[in-house]
């Protein structure tokens, strides 16, 4: 299984988890849209298509793509192994922990189910009506399930070769998108599949993308392209800073709904350079999340996974990210939640980074309620996962300013086609969406993949046969056998040898061994042996090739005392009549036929003489 992501856009259909919730009512209208008032639910990966207990291995490409792990590895009979890099595991754990804590803080007594009834759902307006598979939507998992799921993760490093059942080798490569993010190579000795998911060619904090190892793939599975193909990340970053400065100067507060790891590191680094020049030195920056501290700390200890610049900092030794300095100088403060210390230390105007970017749960809900009514304040969306209009819908009408600068550093179509030109895969497999322009911009033919041969598209639940035929497998010839082989040269540079050997196959590894000589039968056990079947290990006769030249063959016959030979020419060759023995030999370009009655010794002699002229395969 390649990745195990959670579709969290489903939570947009739910009301935000408020701090104090009113009486229970399943559906609620809010600013012209209907929302479900219930614990938010997530849309899971497909679980009906195949028996999940038959999955041997899950490869994770980055920490955003593992959020559904507990649903898959728990309660399904899954007994396999999950492979991920150390930063992916550690930060993935933090994101899951954050999700669980957000949900557990404001538990809803029951979850709404009536609206899922087909009859009722049909009557509902807007996106709710069109939501698919709503019965499979699930509430958040528990911390216990997270721990159990993550205990199945086996850590791997970039370029580490991991053998799976002796059949294939998998290896993660840096994908440049986030800390520890990886593309995967799945290969046997003769076939190579590259799984490219969530890659970035921009220089941000992670190690740059490893492109060269993707070369010579038979199939390249491409996914995780940017969701914002028209937004330039650098431009967005500039817009982010200027809007932030403008709001603060006007005395307003800035709210940045974000994930606790990833782009936030780049935002903080950008602000680190920007603060002084924009004269924001005294503005407090707050990062509020149950895992804020851990996320900031963890980011500093994964030097091996960072870009070269940051890596060389630890040699000094200095922390690789400048947010360490922001914290030290008290410019950036982090809190587990708005309760406790934060409520007493909190000063305005300020900048708050907090989750969840869907605005449906987490501390961000509190700030929406607190600041939403004032036009001085600004909310800046940086995460590309959610439509900002949908995210804001339940809060309407809203006086607060909204700025949308999604920062998605993943590959855009232009970069992809350049990359594919570089790595030259034989076939490309990608989601159907990439093969046509976006619905809203159908004239933009530059926003799709155009390749020769055209990519093979897939959609949910479609089964695709990858277009290669396996023709060869690796087998090891043991030294003893290898030494006994007698090669003969067929043409310059090409030789051959016939091999008869015993094949051993174990754990998908094949070895060839010399055919063992039958063990000498100890005399005492002779009687018992006779009863047993003789071992059938005789070599079959080889195929023959070549032709028998007439003159040379006649000379050979003569040498062996066969002199009375009458030669008769035919359309395809010659017939030799051995008059003394009433035997015929038909010599042709591609065949020899010996017609000989009841004279076994002669037949054998003739056969051996013919064989002298032929190549055996």
């Amino acid at each position, binding site marked *: 299984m390649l990745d195990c992501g959670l579709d969290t856009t489903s939570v947009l259909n739910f009301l935000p988890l408020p701090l104090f919730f009113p009486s229970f009512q399943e559906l609620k209208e809010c600013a012209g849209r209907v929302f479900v008032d219930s614990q938010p639910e997530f849309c899971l990966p497909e679980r009906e298509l195949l028996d999940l207990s038959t999955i041997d291995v899950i490869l994770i490409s980055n920490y955003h793509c593992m959020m559904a792990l507990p649903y898959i590895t728990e309660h399904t009979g899954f007994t396999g192994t999950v492979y991920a890099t150390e930063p992916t595991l550690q930060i993935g754990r933090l994101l899951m922990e954050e999700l669980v804590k957000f949900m557990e803080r404001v538990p809803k007594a029951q979850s709404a189910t009536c609206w899922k009834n087909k009859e009722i759902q049909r009557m509902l307006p807007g996106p709710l009506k069109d939501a698919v598979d709503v019965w499979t939507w699930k509430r958040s998992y528990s911390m216990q399930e997270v721990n159990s799921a993550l205990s199945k993760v086996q850590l791997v490093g970039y370029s580490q070769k991991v053998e799976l059942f002796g059949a294939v080798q998998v290896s993660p490569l840096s994908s440049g998108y986030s800390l520890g993010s990886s593309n995967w190579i799945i290969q046997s000795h003769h076939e190579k599949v590259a799984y490219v998911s969530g890659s970035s060619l921009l220089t941000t904090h992670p190690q740059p993308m490893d492109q060269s190892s993707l070369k010579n793939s038979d199939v390249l599975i491409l996914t995780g392209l940017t969701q914002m193909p028209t937004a330039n990340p650098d431009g967005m970053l500039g817009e982010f800073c200027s809007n932030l400065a403008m709001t603060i100067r006007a005395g307003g507060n800035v709210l940045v709904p974000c994930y606790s790891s990833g782009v936030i590191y780049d935002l903080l680094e950008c602000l680190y350079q920007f603060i002084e020049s924009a004269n924001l030195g005294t503005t407090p920056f707050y990062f509020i999340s149950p895992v804020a501290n851990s996320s900031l*700390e963890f980011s500093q200890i994964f030097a091996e996974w960072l870009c070269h610049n940051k890596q060389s900092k630890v040699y000094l030794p200095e922390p690789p990210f400048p947010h360490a300095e922001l914290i030290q100088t008290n410019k950036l403060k982090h809190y587990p939640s708005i309760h406790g210390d934060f409520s007493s230390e909190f000063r305005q105007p300020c900048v708050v980074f907090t989750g969840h970017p869907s605005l449906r749960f987490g501390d961000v809900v509190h700030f929406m309620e607190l600041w939403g009514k004032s036009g001085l304040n600004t909310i800046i969306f940086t995460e590309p996962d959610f439509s900002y209009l949908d995210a804001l819908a339940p809060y309407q009408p809203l006086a607060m300013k909204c700025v949308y600068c999604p920062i998605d550093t993943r590959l855009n179509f232009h970069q992809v086609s350049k990359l594919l030109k570089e790595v030259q895969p034989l076939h490309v497999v990608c989601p159907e969406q990439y093969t046509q322009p976006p619905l809203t911009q159908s004239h933009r033919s530059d926003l799709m993949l155009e390749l020769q041969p055209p990519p093979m598209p897939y959609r949910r639940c479609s089964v695709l046969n990858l277009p290669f035929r396996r023709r*060869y497998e690796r087998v090891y010839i043991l030294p003893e056998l290898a030494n006994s082989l007698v090669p003969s040269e067929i043409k310059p540079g090409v030789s051959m040898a016939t091999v008869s050997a015993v*094949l*051993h196959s174990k754990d998908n590894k094949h070895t060839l*061994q010399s055919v063992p000589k039958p063990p000498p039968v100890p005399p005492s056990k002779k009687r018992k042996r006779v009863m047993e079947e003789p071992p059938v290990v005789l070599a*079959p006769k080889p195929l023959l090739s070549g032709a028998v030249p007439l003159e040379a063959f006649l000379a050979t016959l003569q040498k062996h005392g066969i002199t009375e030979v009458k030669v008769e020419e035919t359309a395809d060759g010659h017939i030799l009549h051995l008059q003394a023995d009433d035997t015929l030999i038909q010599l042709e370009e591609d065949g020899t036929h010996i017609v000989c009655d009841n004279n076994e010794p002669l037949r054998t002699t003739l056969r051996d003489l013919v064989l002298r002229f032929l190549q055996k395969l």
Partner: protein
Amino acid sequence: MPEIKVTPLGAGQDVGRSCILVSIGGKNIMLDCGMHMGYNDDRRFPDFSYITQNGRLTEFLDCVIISHFHLDHCGALPFMSEMVGYDGPIYMTHPTKAICPILLEDFRKITVDKKGETNFFTSQMIKDCMKKVVPLNLHQTVQVDDELEIKAYYAGHVLGAAMVQIKVGSESVVYTGDYNMTPDRHLGAAWIDKCRPDILISESTYATTIRDSKRCRERDFLKKVHESIERGGKVLIPVFALGRAQELCILLETFWERMNLKAPIYFSTGLTEKANHYYKLFITWTNQKIRKTFVQRNMFEFKHIKAFDRSYADNPGPMVVFATPGMLHAGQSLQIFKKWAGNEKNMVIMPGYCVQGTIGHKILNGQRKLEMEGRSTLDVKLQVEYMSFSAHADAKGIMQLIRMAEPRNMLLVHGEAVKMEFLKGKIEQEFSIDCHMPANGETATVTTNPSVPVDISLNLLKREMALGGPLPDPKKPRTMHGTLIMKENSLKLVSSEQALKELGLNEHQLRFTCRVQLQDPHSDPDTLNRIYTHLKSVLKGYTIQHLPDGTVMVESIVIKVSSSAEDTSTKVLLLSWSYQVKHFYFYNVISSNTRAVKRLILIAINRQISIVNHD
């Protein structure tokens, strides 16, 4: 037969200046490039002239690998790369790359600035040397070139210590560097997978020791320190700035906390804080417990341990001082030792191995009068204690690693000859593998017997696997036959038919025909039919066909019947078969029936069998 050659230039039947040359599959690799603490002359560095008498080493070495930052493993690196000359890649882990230049600079300062030696490497040379370093991640397979690959495993010994696997084709060598098989207070235990190297090159510092439990040693250590403090004495613990020092600091810190002790603990040199910072940034290289809790409490921020100033040595009252270097051969530890040696209330605890020739080694061997520079002598009155804290595997640990990796041969370095001899015997006895222990400049050669990798056509493989029945039975060998085609660098094993095609050869059919007469009054088709029915009943499991053109085929043997016009009861049986007919098609026919015709046919076929059978 391919060979792997191993030649220690240092650390062969000795501890110090580790430097081992390995030749494998046409590649030459240098493992470690250390200095010897026991010498101040040429013998301090490995003898690189062994590699070449004149000039640079670049063309003789494919790569250099440094296992960890201790000077006896990397101290000669700038000398080798900058003064002898080597421009190829030098591999080491990230922490080693970070810490190694600091220790080298320290070493340089002591040698040049304090002892006034000339003709030594400079600060610039250390920098230039470090530019050639390529960082290694754990378990990452690094392709040095198309054929040579290396992979690092966790070794535990100090922060960033690694064991390396070197692989060319199917031949491989594992070099352990220094390692530790039991986790300690700040590091985890060494680990390697069952990689079955041709040679495992292991250190053997504690070849004959089986150490008691770590807990006992720690208790002992704390007791000794505590007693000394109680009676107002000063305790000197010579250490290397990084490694053991951190472990002992954690130990003392928690003890002081628990016992509420007030005596000051100092750590010499400005390196401490910096060193602790490295530990913090490289926390992923420490043990499980520290990694788990680092967000809440960083184990490397000490409350009780403060920086040492030279003047503190004369302060009255008890104190504990960690001072570098660890073998009392130079620097601050030696200065303090000289100051405190005269008072029997004081104590020096040597927490690690001391190389021959160092003061540490001398006092551990009970020497009480030391000759110092300038012909003065020093009376040693303070208590001398030795505590084996250095994180090397003991005999038990070495055996454990052998069990983990399952090498085909063993080679011992980094230990004393007598002790090695003992361990060698034990290894050879327990694992029945050869164990080598070459001295410096001596070459150990191991013949390897690599299997030949070949690409087998999947058709052939599947056919052969299917012959063995649906489930492979390891006890029943399956014979397979095919043709190996050798073309340029590729080796392909295919079925003979495919080989003909691939090589563009025509097949030559060799057929035999023989006529057998028999008496049968029936009509020709009837006779054939009777033959067919009979064969069908006796040859179970063979393909027998009665074809419309008046032939019966048993597998590929063709049987025809004809009779002469004059005598219709004399039938001529035509048997025709190709050279490739397998004899055992007819294996079961020999036992037989009674009826006359059938017998005749059988005789006919039997004769044919005997003909075909005859090889």
